[in-house]
């Protein structure tokens, strides 16, 4: 956090999907996967987004990268506006291509993230050649260099994805992102599919790379144990919206929003003799196409009051540097 300049600014981001089978009568129902999310990421920091499956965190990551068309809101990267749906602004094709070089992504499933028909040299060189990162003659050496940064040998260049283990494939995925020289990387649950010991190796690699190449991460995960240590700031997402944001350590030590409290209480104990008070949430998560009126968490909240059913709370500063979307604060 040496430099406090904003690298990425997301405001009012929305991504809706039409629900299938409702087009004919009564218009389209929309599944609100991401529903009005705003935040900014400082240069050189790691911003974590946690939430349960289906809360929209992955969709959010992809929408920021313009991998899917946004339904609303705007994203600014440095001084460039990637898109602003309300302002009807969109980045030009050439500019977008330039920005692609600077923003990269690491994927959750290393099986599906690598083209099975390409050897590793092709996987890595594709972006390198496209963005002319290095001159034609030295592409191979450059790729080998990037691989070695990610802890793989040069001989891996001529092998195919299926010949590697999950951890190694994830290293290749990181190498591919790194090869074009990005400044900002969206990491979509990069370690879920891995064993604990391999997970540690990959996370350490990412920390090393961040320090050596001054990267900035947006780290999407549902593993609270990892996010707590890996990230500087955390946002907790529920039904497409942030319900709490704040410093990672403080948020995990003393969660403010009832949902965050429940989520943290559900993390398994580390030792059999540890005593932990559990908060069990009632019912199940509502559908994204049928978000409750008022506070979207009130159907499962222990503290729900009359006001929560009517009025939707916005993120407000509940403690210094900590924001929660709850009427309690």
């Amino acid at each position, binding site marked *: 956090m040496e430099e406090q300049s904003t690298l990425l600014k997301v405001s009012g981001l929305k991504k809706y999907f039409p629900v299938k089978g409702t087009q004919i009568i009564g218009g389209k129902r929309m599944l609100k996967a991401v529903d009005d999310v705003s935040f900014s990421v400082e240069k050189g920091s790691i911003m974590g987004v946690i939430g*349960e*499956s289906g809360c929209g965190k992955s969709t959010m990551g992809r929408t920021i990268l313009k991998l899917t068309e946004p339904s609303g809101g705007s994203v600014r990267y440095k001084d460039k506006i990637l898109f602003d749906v309300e302002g009807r602004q969109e980045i030009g094709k050439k500019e977008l291509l330039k920005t692609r070089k600077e923003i990269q992504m690491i994927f959750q499933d290393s099986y599906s993230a690598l083209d099975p028909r390409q050897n590793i040299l092709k996987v890595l060189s594709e972006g390198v050649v496209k963005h002319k990162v290095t001159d034609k003659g030295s592409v191979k050496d450059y790729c080998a260099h990037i691989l070695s940064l990610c802890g793989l040998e040069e001989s891996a260049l001529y092998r195919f994805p299926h*010949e*590697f*283990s*999950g*951890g*190694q494939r994830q290293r290749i995925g990181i190498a591919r992102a790194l090869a074009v020289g990005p400044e900002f990387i969206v990491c979509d649950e990069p370690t879920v599919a891995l*064993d*604990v*010991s*391999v*997970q*540690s*190796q990959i*996370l*350490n690699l990412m*920390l090393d790379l961040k320090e050596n190449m001054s990267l900035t991460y947006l780290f999407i995960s*549902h*593993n*609270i*144990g*990892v996010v*707590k*240590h890996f990230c500087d700031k955390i946002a907790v997402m529920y039904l497409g919206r942030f319900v709490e944001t704040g410093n990672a350590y403080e948020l995990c030590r003393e969660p403010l929003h009832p949902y965050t409290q*429940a*989520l943290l*209480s*559900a*993390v*398994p*104990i*580390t*030792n*059999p*003799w*540890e005593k932990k008070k*559990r908060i*069990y*949430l009632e*019912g*199940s*998560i509502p559908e994204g196409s049928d978000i409750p009126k008022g506070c979207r968490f009130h159907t499962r909240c222990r503290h729900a009051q009359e006001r929560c059913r009517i009025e939707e709370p916005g993120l407000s500063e509940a403690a210094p540097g900590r924001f929660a979307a709850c009427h309690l604060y």
Partner: protein
Amino acid sequence: MELLKIKNLSVSFKVACGRVHAVNDLSFSLQKGKCLAIVGESGSGKSVTALSIMRILETNASVDGGQILFEGRNILAVKEKEMQSIRGKQISMIFQDPMTALNPSYTVYRQIAELYKLHRKAAENVKQEITELLGRLHIPNPELILKKYPFELSGGMCQRIVIAMAFALKPDIIIADEPTTALDVSTQAEILKLLKELSEDTGSAVLLITHDMGVVAEMADEVMVMYNGRRVEKKEAEEFFRNPEHPYTKGLLRARPENFNGRFITMSDERGEIKSGGTKYTS
């Protein structure tokens, strides 16, 4: 009392380039009414052990030696017909992915009724028993759930149904193969609580297969660590967490993300990652 005793079990798979030994000379026992957790990384042979107890190994796998004694009887030698009556009734299994464990074209009711039909001749009171069973799951509207199809339910709800079915006939042993891996933390906590409650109610022993030390800490009375198809260490749970002996176990416990000091801790013996997950090939 020893309910299940496994003696020198070896299982291998036939692959293109020879045989892979998934389980090597494994011995352990499961006490009545207790929960034994088998821990290990992917490829350590923990799931294969579970499948051999149920005798539902894939066709390219074969048990090369050893015995699986259930109530003193070697179930590896039992006839398939007899095994069918053991499965589900005396030993039942919970799988990792609840969505694929249920038949998508059956309603929940039919799903469960099928189980009763299979193991019991008389079909009276089935409906009442099923409602009772679902009542124990802390589901708000059990009647409503009975009419639904699996795809209409969330992953957590499906896993609850699967667990209810596993416990339905009050089996002696429940084998749970990574029952919460596919679920979110909050659902995981609920499922583990349910698993605990039901096993206490029915007195079933649980063989819990997992790679998550947190789940082990929550559930297990005893812990066995597997590596490379072999037993590395087996201990009472508390003793296991307090005084792990084997270097591999120590590494496994230290590698948890909670133990962060600027960097995440990796296994002390930095194994080269081998694709086969450490299983050895012989040709």
